[in-house]
């Protein structure tokens, strides 16, 4: 769901071009309603950036809020902690998601469709409710602790949530469908003759996988990784519910400052930082991913 994938290719032969005439007003009239809606967002972002430039006594412009965040280890900790959790969740989602994406390519069409439908149900179900499901699973009397105690692995129930571990599980669980679909999208377009050729030339199945299939699916892992990292980094519901107030991430910090503590300028500055980090990652890693795609001979086509 990155910008690149969202952009369709050139319109091709359906383009109406009138050389030598003044520009046709029709397309501009057609995009007007959508642009008015987006103008609402752009205007809001401008106001947000203005608020973030407010000093302690309300003087504008001032970088006081940004300086406060940059010089406070406590504030900075929210950013590094979020990045750390999001990175761990991305790694785990790739490791756990790959087998599913690969399996979907190797089974028959009916099973592939069934797994796709299951992932769609997960995707279409409410995010808040999925986190609630994890509260039930990870709680003191939840199934995981019941099994651990019953099997004698532990004496008393473990604290599996209201800590980093709970938030990590929540982030991974929320990310997996995106990761699986991103990797599967690349695997589905992979030229089947490449692994076949490697096998014909005498490579064993594990060798074919490690030296042909896996390197060719790197673009899928990267694009899935960006989506998952950004979703995790910006996550609000997961730390709010599974962190139980003990795990602070950037999004919950912004809410706390802006809404609960009425410290709008500081919240706005934190939001601007989050916005820029997201944009830089999206644009930067996408560029890297494009170059990599060319190197591996897999060009992402506009979907």
């Amino acid at each position: 769901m990155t910008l690149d994938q969202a952009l369709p290719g050139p319109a091709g032969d359906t383009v109406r071009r009138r050389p030598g005439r003044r520009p046709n007003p029709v397309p501009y009239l057609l995009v007007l309603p959508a642009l008015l809606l987006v103008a609402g967002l752009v205007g809001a972002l401008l106001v947000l950036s203005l608020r973030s430039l407010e000093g302690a006594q309300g003087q504008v412009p001032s970088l006081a809020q940004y300086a406060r965040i940059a010089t406070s280890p406590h504030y900075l900790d929210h950013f590094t902690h979020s990045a750390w959790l999001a990175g761990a969740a991305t790694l785990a989602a790739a490791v756990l998601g790959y087998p599913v994406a690969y399996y979907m390519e190797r089974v028959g069409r009916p099973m592939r469709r069934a797994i796709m439908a299951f992932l769609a149900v997960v995707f279409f179900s409410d995010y808040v409710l999925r986190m609630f499901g994890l509260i039930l699973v990870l709680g003191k009397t939840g199934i995981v602790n019941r099994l651990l105690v019953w099997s004698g692995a532990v004496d008393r129930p473990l604290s599996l949530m209201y800590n980093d571990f709970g938030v990590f599980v929540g982030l991974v669980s929320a990310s997996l469908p995106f990761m699986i679909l991103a990797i599967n999208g690349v695997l589905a377009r992979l030229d089947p003759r490449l692994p076949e050729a490697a096998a014909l030339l005498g490579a064993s199945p594990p060798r074919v996988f490690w030296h042909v299939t896996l390197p060719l699916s790197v673009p899928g892992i990267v694009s899935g990784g960006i989506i998952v990292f950004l979703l995790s980094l910006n996550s609000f519901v997961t730390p709010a519910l599974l962190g139980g107030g003990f795990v602070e991430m950037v999004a919950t910090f912004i809410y706390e400052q802006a809404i609960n503590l009425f410290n709008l300028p500081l919240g706005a500055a934190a939001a601007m930082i989050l916005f820029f980090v997201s944009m830089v990652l999206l644009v930067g890693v996408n560029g890297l991913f494009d170059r990599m795609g060319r190197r591996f001979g897999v060009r992402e086509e506009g979907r």
Partner: protein
Amino acid sequence: MMLRLAAWLVLGLLALPVVTIVVTSFNATSSFAFPPEQWSLRWYRNVFDTPVFGSGLVMSLWLAAASSMIGLVAGTMTALAVVRYRFVGRGLVLSLVMAPLVVPEVVIGLSLLIWLQSVRWLSGNGAILLLHCLVVLPFVVRILVANLQRTDVNLEHAAMLLGANPVQAFVRVTLPTIAKGLAGALVFALVMSFHNFTATFFLVSTQQTLPVAIFQYIRTEHDPTIAALSTLLMVGAMVIVWVTDRLLGLERVTK
């Protein structure tokens, strides 16, 4: 063999919370103990006895319907312009329309809240409606661009050669050919609006949407009422997936 085991293990882990929710919803006691010792339907009754869920549902449905209709009209017009015309700023328009998808939700929520406080003519519900239109727009444009690219513009030209004006040609020829795409985009828009939580959470004041009501309930109460409500909503999600598959084909939508 190892692969199949690993894949099913991961899918099982994804399904575990869902299964736990359904089982817990029939728990007779107010604990989250799994598996329950006694069974009952009392939490289902409690869902209907809790007024915030009813009013939240009405608010969410109203928002979803309004934002989807606005988003569908604006999005279809944008998709038409982008697919049928090559114009200066075409790429910029596409990036702008997709922007709500890439700007973090907390940032959208907070910025609209500040915007709302500084602009007199924008009411609280107006800001929420604007937010939901923005949430819905990228999905509508994406689905319809893909759909329109598969239609043949010559059909429209033929209709116009036979005497139809451009509007007639669009309504009588193009619209029926993209009807499935429109229906699919509508479903997607309704779902995306209905489930939006984080950005909406910044803007709600007195009238809560259903996800906000659920979130607040989870934070304050500890009983399986939410499990019962979720089971009901999950049945809804399955119906929606089935309908979407009929209309668009799942492979195409989930990409």
